[in-house]
C-alpha cells in the first residue's frame, strides 16, 4: 500500500474537514433553536486570537497532547486506557508533594519530580494491567473504577498533607520552591504570558512515540498485538507481557500530563487544579487517529476552541459550555466520517482491482490463445 497515494491523502483529509462542517452546522442549528446569537458566537470563536490567547492555546494544547499520546499508546495495542484521568491525578499529586519538600535543588528537583510522576502514573496503571493479565478483568471496567478510587485516595491524602495558607480557603499541597518553578519561554512576541517550558516534554514524547511505535521491533510487536492477538502469538510475541508493558507505558506517560501545569502555572496541587484532562485525551487521540502529527493538530483544535470560548459569555452572552457541544459533535462526526471514508476507500479499491482484473482477462485470451 502506497502511503503517498493522492487519493488516500484526499480521503484522509476529508474526514476531519467533513466533521468540522457537520459540527458547525449542528451547533448553529442548536443556537438558532435556543434563540442565541449565531453570528456573534461564531465571530467570537473564529476571531484571530490575541498574542496572550495564542500562548494560552499553545499551553493548553501541550497538556492535551501529552494526555492524548498517553491514551494513544494503549489504543495502538487495542487497550482502552480510560484511566488516564486517574493516573495523571495520582501522578501530579505525588510529584507536587515530592517537589514541595524541596529535598533537591532547582532543576534536579524538577527532573526527579517528573520521574516520580511517571512512576506513580505507571504504578496506578499497572493495577489495571495486572488485573487484565492475571484475572482477565477488562481494562475498561478496572480503569474506570480506578479513576473513582484515585479521586478518593488523592483527596484523602491531600487533606493530610495540605498546607493551609493564612486567610485562604483553598486546599493545596506545599508550594514548590521558587528555584524549581519554570517561568516559561517567550515564544510569542507581544504576549504578557509565556509558553510552558515543558512544551519540550511534549515534543520529546511525540518524537519518541513516533519513533518507538513506528521504527522499532517493540513498536511493531505492540501494533501487531493490537491488530491480531493470535497472529502476534504465532509470531512469538509474549502477549501478557506486552499488555503489562503497554499499559504501564501509557500510565507513565499519563504521569507527565500535569507536569507543565505544576511547574509552569499552579506550583502546587490543590482543589483548583485542572480536572478531566484524561477524558479530553481520549477524544483527542481519536480525532488525531493515534498519529503523532494528527494528535498535535487535534490538540491545537481542542485548545483553540477552549480558549476562544472564554470570551463567549462576555461578548455574545452565551454560556461557554456551548463549546462542549461543538467538541462532542466534532468527535462523533469524525468517527462516522472515518468509517464512511474507509468504506468509500474500500469500494474504490475493489472497483480498481475489478477493473484491472477485467482488463487482464480481456487481454489474456489473446496471449494464451496463440498456438505455438
Amino acid at each position: 500500500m502506497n502511503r503517498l497515494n493522492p487519493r488516500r491523502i484526499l480521503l484522509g483529509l476529508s474526514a476531519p474537514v467533513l466533521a468540522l462542517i457537520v459540527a458547525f452546522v449542528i451547533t448553529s442549528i442548536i443556537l438558532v433553536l435556543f434563540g442565541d446569537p449565531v453570528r456573534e458566537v461564531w465571530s467570537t470563536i473564529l476571531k484571530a486570537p490575541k498574542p496572550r490567547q495564542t500562548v494560552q492555546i499553545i499551553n493548553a494544547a501541550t497538556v492535551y497532547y501529552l494526555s492524548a499520546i498517553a491514551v494513544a499508546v494503549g489504543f495502538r495495542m487495542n487497550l482502552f486506557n480510560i484511566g488516564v484521568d486517574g493516573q495523571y491525578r495520582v501522578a501530579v499529586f505525588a510529584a507536587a508533594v515530592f517537589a514541595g519538600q524541596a529535598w533537591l535543588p532547582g532543576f534536579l528537583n524538577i527532573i526527579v519530580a517528573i520521574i516520580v510522576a511517571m512512576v506513580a502514573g505507571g504504578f496506578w496503571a499497572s493495577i489495571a494491567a495486572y488485573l487484565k493479565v492475571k484475572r482477565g478483568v477488562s481494562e475498561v471496567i478496572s480503569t474506570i473504577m480506578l479513576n473513582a478510587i484515585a479521586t478518593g485516595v488523592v483527596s484523602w491524602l491531600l487533606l493530610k498533607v495540605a498546607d493551609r495558607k493564612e486567610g485562604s480557603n483553598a486546599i493545596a499541597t506545599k508550594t514548590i520552591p521558587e528555584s524549581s518553578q519554570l517561568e516559561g519561554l517567550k515564544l510569542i512576541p507581544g504576549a504578557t504570558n509565556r509558553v510552558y517550558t515543558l512544551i519540550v516534554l511534549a515534543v520529546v514524547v511525540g518524537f519518541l512515540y513516533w519513533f518507538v511505535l513506528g521504527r522499532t521491533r517493540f513498536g511493531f510487536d505492540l501494533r501487531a498485538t493490537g491488530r491480531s492477538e493470535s497472529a502476534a502469538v504465532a509470531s512469538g510475541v509474549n502477549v501478557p507481557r506486552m499488555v503489562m508493558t503497554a499499559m504501564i507505558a501509557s500510565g507513565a506517560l499519563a504521569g507527565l500530563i500535569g507536569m507543565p501545569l505544576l511547574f509552569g502555572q499552579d506550583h502546587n496541587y490543590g482543589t483548583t487544579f485542572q480536572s478531566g484532562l484524561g477524558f479530553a485525551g481520549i477524544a483527542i487521540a481519536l480525532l488525531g487517529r493515534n498519529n503523532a502529527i494528527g494528535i498535535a493538530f487535534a490538540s491545537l483544535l481542542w485548545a483553540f476552541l477552549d480558549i476562544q470560548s472564554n470570551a463567549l459569555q462576555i461578548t455574545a452572552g452565551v454560556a461557554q459550555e456551548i463549546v462542549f457541544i461543538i467538541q462532542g459533535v466534532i468527535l462523533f462526526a469524525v468517527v462516522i466520517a472515518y468509517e464512511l471514508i474507509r468504506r468509500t476507500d474500500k469500494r474504490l479499491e475493489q472497483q480498481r482491482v475489478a477493473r484491472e482484473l477485467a482488463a487482464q482477462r480481456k487481454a489474456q485470451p489473446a496471449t494464451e490463445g496463440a498456438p505455438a
Partner: protein
Amino acid sequence: MRHAMKVAAVMSVAALTLAACGDSGNDSSPSGSGSSDSGKKSDLKVGMAYDVGGRGDQSFNDAAAAGLDKAKKELGVETKEAAAVNGENEAAREERLQQLVDAGYTHIVAVGFAYAASVGKAAKDNPDVNFAIVDDASDDSKGANVDQITFAENEGSFLVGAAAALKSKAGHIGFVGGVNVPLIKKFEAGYIAGAKAVNPNIKIDSQYLTQPPDFSGFGDPAKGKTAAEGMYQKGADIVYHAAGGSGGGVFTAAKAAGDGKWAIGVDSDQALTAPADVRDKILTSMVKKVDVAVYDFIKSAADGKELTGPNEYNLAKGGVDYSKTGGHIDDIASKLDDYKQQIIDKKITVPTTP
C-alpha cells in the same frame, strides 16, 4: 474502526457522567445593558466572575448577583457577568478576568476562593482596575487594588447553633456540610460552639457529603437528603446544613421526618427562597450577606472611596446574621440577641475550627 466506535461509546458515557457532575447553571444568560435610565447614573462598569454554577445556583453565586443587581438598580452601573466552567484551569480564570478588563470594566468582582491567584495576578497586571474577591484573604490575592471580602461564618453559625440547642427537645442535633473544606469547617465550629454554650451536654452529629476535589457535595440534594434522614432517624430533631444546593435535600428530609423535626438554612434566608412546600420546616437561616459586601464594594467606588485590603464582614458589621422569617424562633430571639451582643462586645470568641 470497530475500535473507534467502541471508544466513542465509552466517551459518550464519560461525557454523560461529566455532564451530570457539573451543573451548568448558565441558563439565565448574562445581560450587559446598563442603559436603564432609572436612578442616578454612574459611569462605573462592573464585571462579575462567578464560581461554577453562576447566577441561578440559589446559593452563594446568587447572593453575589443580588448585590450586583442592587448596585445596577440604585447606582445605575453597567454590568457584565461570566461564570466558571467545572474543572477549568488557572489560565481560564485569569483569562476571564482579563477579558472583563479588556471589555472596559473598571471594577471586577470575583466570586469564590478559586479565583485567589488569578485576582492577584490580574490586579498586578491592571493597576488601574479595582478588584474584589469573595471568601479569600490570602497573600495570593493581595494587592493595592483588591478588596478581600471574607465573612465570620462561625459567628453567624454560633447563633443558629444556640437556636438549635434552645429549640431541641431531644438534646440531639445535626450538621450537614457540603464538602470537607476549611471554609465549611468554620460553619461547623461556630454551630457546635453555639449549641454547647446553651447546653454543654448536647449531642451533635456532623457529616460531610463529599471530600475535595469532589465538590458535588454543594450541588447534590440526594446526598443531602440521605445524610439528614440518617440524623433524624437516629433521634436528632434539628439539622443545620452548610451544603449549598444539597440543602434542598435536607429540607425534604425534615418534611418527611414529620412534626417536631426542623432544618436550618444557610447563606440566604431560605425560608423565603426554598421551595414553598418545605419553607415551614425551616427554623431559621444563617445569613451570609455576600450581597451586602458586593454592594459595599461598588457603592464605595461610586462614592470615590475604593475599598481595598482585607474586609471581614462579621456580626458587628452586619455581614452575618440569623433570620426570623416564619416566627418559629420569636420566643428565643431575646436570648439569641443577647449572645449576639456578647460576640459583638468580644465577650465570646467563636472558634473557627471544630
